[in-house]
Structures are given as structure tokens and as C-alpha cells.
């Protein structure tokens, strides 16, 4: 026997270790990687293994054999199905910041009373379960140390549990913050429980039964022991019990709290899908060897405490203490977490709706103290239940009542996930008729009066199944017959797997952040309202000043989810309700579509089947519009910009993100005016509208169409087509055509003028023979000079008109460039034109080019004449040349006035001249250009050649040289 003090010290030491672990985690003194590891969270789910599975299971195995597995297998199935059931619940609770089952149902059915009903039922079912845990600890203490004051110890235990729950389970005002200390402590408890069971089982096998072979031998010798463990109960009770454990593993407050509220990642639930079944397997596997060891040792006494008796029978204090600590950890885990969870439930659904936060108190502290007081109240309630529980044999009956009560929440939970048709009436009718008929059937039966209730042989099974069936039928009937509110339908969509929440057709009364703050201030106080708003704004990454309608809607949604973590979903929705006003306008609205699209982007990975195909199609169509090589802009029914594609971004230099939701009138000039006038006008097409953009003319064609023929305000699509390039090309073509006709015209004119001029020249020459009069002879000479000039112009015209003909190309032969330049210089110097520049022929003597001598002479004469005209008296005109590979580069440099930059582009245009009328034809340089092109060369004019003095012109001509092999 243990002394009471020793046991107390051991219990306190264990609980202190637990406090220490939690404290270290909260203070970040344990490695963060370890604390946040999904494995730790998964292990914490082992809180499911309460005193029921630690002590009670021995009673069941001795009584009903293999049916003891029902609690382990029920939970195993729940975890195996975690990806299908628990992961979607986690997504909903995390998105909408729901912290308990009552929050989930209150959010789903948009009803405060449903949250209250759920909270009360959960508390009513859980308090007796906690009382059973307290009883287990008190009984084990009493068994080990009969002189210990039983009720005092139970009260002390409750006080320590309440302290732990307050210190580590109610640390943050908002339920969205994780209590890492609590999670780590629960993980430690899970490890302790399973290690204790395995250690005692190993002792049983090796210490009592003589190893695996000894066990086998003992089982052969004692077939009734094997049969006892393997027997299956006659009744089907354990099938229903299995279902009850399945639902309890998800729905009991401590499981819900750890699986969803304290969980931040889907990964831990996915890992739990195999880790928890393995954990439960280890626990279940340890039970039969312990039972057989106890049978071999001939232990009698309360079958539930067999595990304690083994150590006592073997006089091993270590074994007994281990078993006691294991039981303590199994009981304490559920007590702490269930109390924390129920406190938040009662806070959100019982107290907050009926209390007003005092003005002079900070909300966060107020909420924390409220929850701490609730924890104390709940723990006192549990203790009260324990004292009222004067029948130790009622353990199974109480457990059964509680587990089947949780089973009645299962239809509503599954409907929340998979059936959008359920409504609040269906929920209430199903739950009340189910639980009511179950409790009534149990009350009317003689189970409650029986001295020893047997879980597996008594006939409670049909009552449980029939009440569950009634629950389902009433749920479907209620949902079908009673009306569903629009709000409920939206919440239903939000909870459904693969169904995206539809954008809310509401307009907000708010336009600024201050409007939100003004709404929150009376309930939360100025400081809290401001802090919550700032947090949400930071999460959304939007500024405080300018909020678009889309931003306002996002702010409202995020704020509701955020406040739900603080005050529960019902309070949060009620608080923000005054913001909404129903929008009577039909059709797409810009912010709705953008909200829809942003949600679709988030949901993309989760879409499957037809929804995924449709989403792919949506993306394809959107991309098509986005990449269309025509500017596309759509306006919604409100006249706001809904879509702005890449091409129109390029035309306007306005990014889609900047202009979405704007009205076209707000766009900068000239787009605002253009689009507004066109959208409001009667014309559906507006061809070649000229705009001045950045100093350049641009031409756009506009087209528009209403999105619906029936409704005049259903929105419209506007196309913007850039026609600038096409129009410029057409202009260029017309210009070329004009030039070509001038060429043809010039050739005709030259031919027609040539004949009379020849006649005039002959007559002028004849004057010499017909008269000796000096003035007449002088006039004849002048007429002859003028006719020569006319001939020269005519010749130029003819040459220009004929230039480009292919017959010249065959006459290219090597010729001396030096001689050609020398002749050109000689010719030019003869026609001095009033100026006398200096000439310099620097072309190497032996340099030869391939070409037609006459034509090349012509280009040099033309170029030198131009140089001569521009060069002042005594100015230098130099001609140089050099050979580069197979090309010859000729440079003609003058010291003239240079050519203004604006004229340089037009130098080679026919009939373009800067000379006085009568002095230039405007055909010189075009002729030069044509001849050089014909020689496969090119010409470049650089002016000013001397950049320092800003004067002079350099003409660079490249012509093909003689082939290298040619001598």
C-alpha cells in the first residue's frame, strides 16, 4: 500500500512536469521546429484515449471480450476518414475562425439560438464524462491508499486541472491564437499513456507469462482465457457503440478543440489518418496481455482497475505508480481540453449575446476573465456531477448516454459538409427529436434503475438506432418543408466541399475605414476596434485611405471572420449587419465578378470534376480575351470597368489593376472623354478617330455592343482597334504612287520639250550666219546658252526617268576613280557660278571601281556642284577615297553651311530643292541615289561634318571595287 502523501507527491510531480512542458513551449524555450511539428499536433489528438480507454476498457474486455475494440476502432475509422471529413471541417473552421462545434453550427445555420442549443447539449453530455474521469482518478487513489480523503483529493485534482486550463488554455482573448503549451502538454500525455500501457503489457508478457513462447503455452493451457478475449457479444450493441465512438472522436469538445481550433495545418490531420490508428492499435494491443497476466496472477477485485492490481500483486511500486500516472494523464487530458473548449462555447453562445461589455474595461481582458470564470464554473459543475455520481457501476451508462448524444450531432455535421439543402429547422427538429426520443427511451426502460448496467447485453441498441433514424428523417423533412433564408443558403455554400461561396449581392453602407470603426466602437471599445481593423487591413495588404468597393467588401468579409475568432460567428455577423443594404440591381457588378474571380483563384486546387473543367474553360476564355490583339474593355451594369485587356493597357498606358471598377469618365485624357462619349452615344461603330498621344497622331476605330439585347443596362463591351499603322502605310503608298506618276510625266514632258528646244538652238546658231550685228549675236549666244540649260534639265529628267533600267547593269567595268574625279572637278570648275572654291583630289591614283564611267561622272558632278553652291569663296572641297576589302569608300567633304536636320530626311525626294527657283531642279540627288543603287552601292550624308564649328557636309559613297584577283 502507498502512503497518501507519496501518491499525492507523485501526482503533483507529474502534473508539475506537464505544467513545465507547457510553460517551456509558451515561452519559446523548446525548439520551435519541435513545437510546431505536425507530429506533435497529431500526438495531441491522443487525448481521445480517456480514462474510459485506460481503465474502463479492462472491464469491457473481461465482460464482453473483443468488443472492447469498439472505442479504438470507432476512432480509427474517424481518423482514416480524416481527409474526407476532418480536413473539410478544418478548412471551414480556419477560414471562418470557428472555435467549437456550436460555432460551426451557429455559422452554418446563421442562428444564435442554434449555437446556444448545441452548447448546452454538448455541456450536458460532457460534464458527466468529466465526472467519470474525476471518479477514475479518485477511485485509483482510493484503491492505492484507502486512508486518503477521497473527495478532498478529487477537489484538489479539479482545482489543479482548472489552474492548468486557465494558465495554458485561456491565454489569448481571441480563439484564433493557438495555445501551443496546451498542445505540447497533450502530446506528452498521449506519449505517457501509451508508454505506460506498453510497459505494463511488456512486463505482463516477459515478467508474468514468461515471454512470447510462455504466453503461447499459457494460452494453450488456458483456452478459456483466450476465448474470453476473443468472444463476440451476441447482441449488435457494439456496432452502434462503434458508430458512437466514431462520431465522438470528431465531435466531443476536446477532440474538436484539438483537431480544429488548435490546428493550423491540414498536414497534421493527414498524418493523423495513419498515425492515430497506429497509436490506438498500440494501446489496444497492450490490453489482452495485461488481462492474461492478471488472470495468471489470479487478481480479483474491480475489473476496471486491473492495471493497478498487477503492480500491487507483484509488490512493484514502480509498476503501480506507472499505472497510476498513466490513468492520471488519461483523465487530465480530456478534463483540461474539454473544459477550455466548453468555456469558449458558453462564452460565445450563452454569455456574449446577453451581456454588454462595460465601457471602462478593455475588451481583451474582459473576454479572458470571462473565459477563466467559465472554466472555474465548469470545473465546479464537473465536481458537483462527480459527487452526485454515487453509483460507481453507472460509469458505462453515463458514458453510453454521452456518446450516443454526440452521435446525434453526426447527421447534421455530415449534412453541413455534403448537403446544402439542410436548414436550421431541419437541424433543430432532427436533433431535438433524436436526442429527446433517445433519452425518453432510456428513461422509460429499466436501465437507469438497474444496479448493474451491461453495455453489451442490455437492449439499448434499438432505441439508439431508431432515435438516430428519427433524427435523420426529421432533419430531411424539416429542411424540405420549412423555408431556408438566403443568408443560410450562402453559409451552406461556404461550408460545402467544392462549392464556392457566391459573391454577396450587397452594397455596403460604408465607404471608409472610419465607418467600420464607428460601427465596432460601441461594442468593442475604441482601442480594440482600431486594433482589430488595423490587423485586418494589414492582412489584406490594403491602405487605410483610398478603398475601392471591392476592397470594402473584402474588408467586411475578412473582418467578420476575424471577429468570429474573438466573439464567435453570431456576434460577429450581428455586429457587421448594419453595413449591408440589399442591392436591387441585376446583372454582373464589377466587384462581385472580381471577388468571384479572386475566390476562384484560391479554390483552384480544390476544384474537381465538372467544376474543374468549367474553371479551365473560364480560364481559357479569359486568356483569349486577355490576349486578343484588339483592345477590349467591358463595362458592368453600373457603367464601371469590368475588364481591361493587355492590348488596351498598351494603347492607353493604364494598367488593368488601376482602372478596374472605375467609370470611364475618370480615366485620364483623352481616353476618359473618348470612351464616355462613345459608350453614351448612339453609334455602334466609330471608324478612324484621330487622337493626339504624346505629340504623335494616332487613329483608333471603336466598336461597341450591349451584353444583353433585352436589358438596356446589362453592361457593354467596347473594342478599340489601332489603325495608325494601316493609315500611315496607305499614305506612304499614295505618296509613292504620286512620285511614280511624276516620273512618267517628266519623261513625257522632256521628250515633248526636247524637239522645240533643238529647233530654237538651231535658229539661234543660224543667227551667226545671218547677222553681224553685235547685240544680235550676243542675244543669239544667250539664247544658245539658255537652250543648253533647258537641254541639261531635260537630259536630267530623262536620265532620272530612265534610271533603274536594267540595261545599264551590263556595262560596269573597272575605271580609274582618280581620273573620274579629276574630270568631274574640271567640269565643275568651268561652271564656277560666281564662287571660286579650292578643290583637292586626294584619291589614290591606282584606285579603281566597277561602274559606268559616264554615270559615275554624273554623280560626282552633281555632288560637287551641290558642294560648290554651299561652300563660301576660297572654301575647300576635298575628295578622298580608300579601299576596304572589296569596297571603295569615297568621301566628299565641303566647308559649306551644312544641311539643317529637318531637311536631311527629304534630300533624296525628287523635286525637293532649297536652291532659288531656276537654279536647281530637285532631281540631282535623287538621280545620284538611283545611279548608286544601280551600282550596288550606297550613299550617306553627314551634316554637320565638323561638329565643333557646326558646318560642312560629308558625303560618303560606297561602291564596289575591282575584284581582288583582277590585276
Amino acid at each position, binding site marked *: 500500500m502507498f502512503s497518501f502523501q507519496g501518491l499525492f507527491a507523485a501526482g503533483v510531480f507529474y502534473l508539475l512536469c506537464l505544467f513545465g512542458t507547457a510553460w517551456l513551449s509558451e515561452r519559446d524555450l523548446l525548439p520551435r521546429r519541435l513545437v510546431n511539428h505536425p507530429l506533435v499536433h497529431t500526438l495531441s489528438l491522443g487525448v481521445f484515449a480517456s480514462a474510459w480507454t485506460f481503465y474502463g476498457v479492462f472491464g469491457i474486455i473481461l465482460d464482453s471480450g*473483443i468488443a472492447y475494440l469498439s472505442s479504438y476502432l470507432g476512432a480509427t475509422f474517424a481518423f482514416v476518414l480524416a481527409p474526407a471529413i476532418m480536413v473539410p471541417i478544418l478548412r471551414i473552421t480556419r477560414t471562418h475562425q470557428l472555435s467549437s462545434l456550436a460555432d460551426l453550427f451557429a455559422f452554418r445555420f446563421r442562428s444564435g439560438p442554434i449555437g446556444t442549443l448545441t452548447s448546452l447539449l454538448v455541456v450536458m453530455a460532457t460534464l458527466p464524462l468529466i465526472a467519470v474521469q474525476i471518479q477514475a482518478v479518485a477511485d485509483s487513489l482510493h484503491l492505492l491508499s484507502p486512508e486518503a480523503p477521497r473527495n478532498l483529493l478529487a477537489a484538489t485534482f479539479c482545482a489543479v486541472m482548472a489552474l492548468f486550463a486557465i494558465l495554458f488554455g485561456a491565454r489569448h482573448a481571441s480563439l484564433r491564437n493557438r495555445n501551443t503549451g496546451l498542445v505540447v502538454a497533450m502530446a506528452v500525455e498521449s506519449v505517457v499513456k501509451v508508454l505506460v500501457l506498453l510497459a505494463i503489457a511488456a512486463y505482463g508478457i516477459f515478467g508474468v507469462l514468461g515471454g512470447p513462447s510462455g504466453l503461447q503455452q499459457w494460452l494453450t493451457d488456458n483456452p478459456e482465457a483466450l476465448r474470453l478475449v476473443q468472444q463476440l457479444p451476441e447482441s449488435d450493441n457494439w456496432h452502434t457503440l462503434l458508430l458512437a465512438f466514431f462520431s465522438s472522436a470528431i465531435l466531443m469538445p476536446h477532440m474538436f478543440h484539438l483537431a480544429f481550433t488548435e490546428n493550423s495545418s491540414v498536414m497534421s490531420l493527414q498524418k493523423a489518418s495513419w498515425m492515430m490508428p497506429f497509436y490506438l492499435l498500440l494501446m*489496444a494491443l497492450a490490453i489482452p496481455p495485461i488481462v492474461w497476466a492478471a488472470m495468471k496472477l489470479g487478481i480479483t477485485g474491480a475489473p476496471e482497475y486491473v492495471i493497478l492490481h498487477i503492480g500491487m500483486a507483484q509488490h512493484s511500486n514502480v509498476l503501480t505508480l506507472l499505472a497510476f500516472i498513466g490513468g492520471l494523464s488519461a483523465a487530465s487530458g480530456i478534463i483540461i481540453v474539454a473544459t477550455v473548449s466548453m468555456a469558449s462555447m458558453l462564452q460565445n453562445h450563452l454569455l456574449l449575446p446577453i451581456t454588454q461589455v462595460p465601457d471602462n474595461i478593455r475588451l481583451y481582458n474582459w473576454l479572458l476573465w470571462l473565459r477563466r470564470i467559465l472554466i472555474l464554473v465548469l470545473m465546479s459543475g464537473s465536481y458537483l456531477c462527480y459527487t452526485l455520481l454515487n453509483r460507481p457501476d453507472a460509469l458505462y451508462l453515463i458514458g453510453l448516454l454521452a456518446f450516443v448524444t454526440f452521435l446525434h450531432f453526426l447527421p447534421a455535421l455530415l449534412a453541413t459538409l455534403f448537403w446544402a439543402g439542410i436548414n436550421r429547422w431541419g437541424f433543430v427538429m432532427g436533433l431535438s427529436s433524436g436526442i429527446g426520443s433517445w433519452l425518453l427511451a432510456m428513461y422509460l426502460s429499466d436501465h437507469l434503475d438497474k444496479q448493474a448496467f451491461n453495455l453489451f447485453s442490455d437492449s439499448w441498441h434499438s432505441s439508439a438506432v431508431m432515435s438516430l433514424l428519427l433524427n435523420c428523417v426529421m432533419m430531411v423533412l424539416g429542411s424540405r418543408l420549412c423555408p431556408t433564408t438566403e443568408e443560410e443558403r450562402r453559409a451552406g455554400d461556404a461550408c460545402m466541399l467544392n462549392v464556392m461561396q457566391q459573391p454577396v449581392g450587397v452594397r455596403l453602407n460604408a465607404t471608409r475605414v472610419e465607418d467600420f470603426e464607428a460601427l465596432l466602437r460601441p461594442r468593442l471599445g475604441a482601442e480594440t476596434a482600431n486594433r482589430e481593423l488595423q490587423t485586418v487591413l494589414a492582412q489584406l495588404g490594403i491602405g487605410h485611405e483610398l478603398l475601392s468597393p471591392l476592397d470594402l467588401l473584402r474588408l467586411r468579409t475578412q473582418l467578420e471572420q476575424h471577429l468570429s475568432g474573438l466573439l464567435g460567428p453570431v456576434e460577429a455577423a450581428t455586429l457587421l449587419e448594419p453595413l449591408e443594404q440589399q442591392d436591387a440591381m441585376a446583372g454582373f457588378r464589377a466587384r462581385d465578378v472580381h471577388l468571384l474571380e479572386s475566390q476562384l483563384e484560391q479554390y483552384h486546387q480544390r476544384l474537381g470534376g465538372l467544376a474543374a473543367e468549367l474553371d479551365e474553360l473560364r480560364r481559357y476564355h479569359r486568356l483569349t480575351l486577355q490576349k486578343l490583339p484588339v483592345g477590349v474593355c467591358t463595362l458592368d451594369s453600373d457603367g464601371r470597368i469590368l475588364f481591361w485587356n493587355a492590348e488596351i493597357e498598351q494603347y492607353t498606358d493604364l494598367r488593368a489593376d488601376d482602372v478596374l471598377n472605375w467609370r470611364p469618365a475618370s480615366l485620364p485624357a483623352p481616353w476618359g472623354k473618348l470612351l464616355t462619349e462613345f459608350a453614351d452615344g448612339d453609334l455602334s461603330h466609330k471608324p478612324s478617330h484621330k487622337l493626339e498621344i504624346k505629340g504623335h497622331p494616332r487613329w483608333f476605330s471603336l466598336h461597341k455592343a450591349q451584353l444583353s439585347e433585352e436589358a438596356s443596362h446589362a453592361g457593354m463591351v467596347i473594342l478599340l482597334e489601332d489603325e495608325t499603322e494601316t493609315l500611315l502605310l496607305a499614305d506612304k503608298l499614295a505618296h509613292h504612287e504620286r512620285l511614280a506618276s511624276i516620273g512618267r510625266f517628266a519623261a513625257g514632258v522632256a521628250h515633248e520639250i526636247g524637239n522645240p528646244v533643238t529647233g530654237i538652238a538651231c535658229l539661234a546658231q543660224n543667227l551667226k550666219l545671218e547677222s553681224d550685228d553685235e547685240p544680235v549675236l550676243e542675244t543669239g549666244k544667250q539664247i544658245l546658252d539658255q537652250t543648253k540649260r533647258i537641254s541639261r534639265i531635260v537630259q536630267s529628267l530623262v536620265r532620272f526617268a530612265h534610271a533603274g533600267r536594267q540595261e545599264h547593269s551590263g556595262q560596269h567595268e573597272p575605271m580609274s576613280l582618280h581620273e573620274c574625279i579629276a574630270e568631274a572637278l574640271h567640269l565643275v570648275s568651268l561652271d564656277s557660278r560666281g564662287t571660286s572654291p579650292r578643290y583637292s583630289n586626294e584619291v589614290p591614283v591606282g584606285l579603281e571601281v566597277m561602274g559606268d564611267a559616264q554615270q559615275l561622272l554624273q554623280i560626282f558632278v552633281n555632288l560637287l556642284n551641290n558642294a560648290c553652291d554651299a561652300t563660301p569663296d576660297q572654301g575647300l572641297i576635298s575628295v578622298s577615297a580608300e579601299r576596304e576589302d572589296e569596297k571603295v569608300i569615297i568621301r566628299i567633304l565641303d566647308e559649306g553651311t551644312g544641311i539643317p536636320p529637318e531637311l536631311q530626311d527629304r534630300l533624296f525626294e525628287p523635286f525637293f530643292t532649297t536652291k532659288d527657283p531656276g537654279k536647281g531642279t530637285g532631281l540631282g540627288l535623287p538621280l545620284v541615289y538611283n545611279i548608286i543603287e544601280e551600282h550596288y552601292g550606297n550613299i550617306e550624308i553627314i551634316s554637320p561634318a565638323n561638329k565643333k564649328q557646326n558646318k560642312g557636309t560629308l558625303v560618303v559613297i560606297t561602291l564596289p571595287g575591282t575584284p581582288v584577283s583582277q590585276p
Partner: protein
Amino acid sequence: MFLHRTALLMILGCFLAVPVLLDWWLAPSAAWYRPFLIWLLLIAFCLLLDLRRSRQDV
């Protein structure tokens, strides 16, 4: 109405198949550790699914 036909079918299927499957699982005629071996196989299957899911997520 968004009623998941697969889910409904699965619930009905479980309701019909699970009792039979459980009776076979826990049949008393075989070795006492047989239920645990089948359990272990179920865990291995879940582990395999989880590994495949993690690989797909990466």
C-alpha cells in the same frame, strides 16, 4: 441541390458493409492477433495514401 452522391453512397455502403466486415475482422475462430494484423494493413494503406498525397502536393 449540392448533394454529394458519392458521400451518400459511401454512407449507405458503410452502413451495409461495415457490420459484416467487422464480424469477419473480429472472427473468434482465428489467432488472437489476427484483428491487429488486419488493422496494421489498414494503417499501411492509409500511410501509402498519405505518402502519395504528400508527393502530389510537392
